[in-house]
């Protein structure tokens, strides 16, 4: 709803505040409810970690396999690529074929990396 002079980011900030409030309000209400009516009753077992009805063995904060990390790396690279791609896309209508080919080269370089990773089996989930 453009037209009224307001800084767009103010609306975003307001929305953020509103959204947090939206999430927070029921939590507060639930808290109040618990305070006045339905008391919280924590307990040793109740507040233990759920594990299929057994007592939890070992810590959940354990070390993970590397595959997650590998995906994250590839993701990071392509995320950065997207950062370059977007301004290119915006400017695309004003660009020459040469610039487009430059972008194509850019993409192909990354894709080459991806293909390499694929062939290495990096992107095979384990």
């Amino acid at each position, binding site marked *: 709803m453009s037209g009224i002079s307001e800084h767009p980011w103010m609306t975003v900030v307001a929305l953020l505040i509103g959204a947090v409030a939206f999430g927070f309000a029921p939590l507060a209400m639930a808290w109040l409810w618990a305070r006045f*009516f*339905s*008391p919280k*009753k924590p*307990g*040793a*077992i*109740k507040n*233990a970690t*759920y594990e*299929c*009805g*057994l*007592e939890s063995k070992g810590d959940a904060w354990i070390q993970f396999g590397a595959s997650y990390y590998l995906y994250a790396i590839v993701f990071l690279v392509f995320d950065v690529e997207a950062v370059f791609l977007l301004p290119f896309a915006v400017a695309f209508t004003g660009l020459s074929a040469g610039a487009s080919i430059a972008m194509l080269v850019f993409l192909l370089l990354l894709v080459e990396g991806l293909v390499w990773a694929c062939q290495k089996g990096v992107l095979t989930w384990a």
Partner: protein
Amino acid sequence: MADDLKELKIELSKNGIFTTTLEELYNWGRKNSVWPLTFGLACCAIEMIATTMARYDLARFGAEVFRPSPRQADLIIVSGTVTKKMAPQVVRLYNQMPEPKYVIAMGACAISGGPFRDGYNVLKGIDRYIPVDVHIPGCPPRPEALIHAFMTLQKKIEEQALAGENRPRHLRADLPSEFEVPEFGEHGLEPPANPELFPALPGNPLKVLQ
């Protein structure tokens, strides 16, 4: 005037529209949104599943949201034989559910050990360790019977008071919301029943099979 209001209230509540008091709203909400725990033990569990299936469709009552995590469940349907080996897990699951929580003991086994009552590894009724709201006999109870039990539970919820002396357990801070988990002993569970819930009744011990 007052009568009119009351009538309106009844009329509204017939349509499921919540009415004035907090208590009613509370009970209305609870009773119409009972999410059972995804939890089946034995044959009765199959009938429980059948109850959620097309023919009987427990979803009509808003209860098809079977939650696999006890944290999000309101109701544990003990559907089947609770063995001694399983009993601690059942109690732990119940304990891990947030209040208010309800228990339906579905089938003979859950109530009393049922046909397998004489077995050495069979718990003679889950009410020894957790408080049961509704018992539904049968082996297995028909799906309709489970729906009936469900409605009995709804009625029970409806009648609970929000304040006052006879308000239900979950509203009272002095009453526990978790119960002792029995331990595996050398010959059976220790203790064989939770004395708070299941006071040792006078009289004969189970006559042992010969």
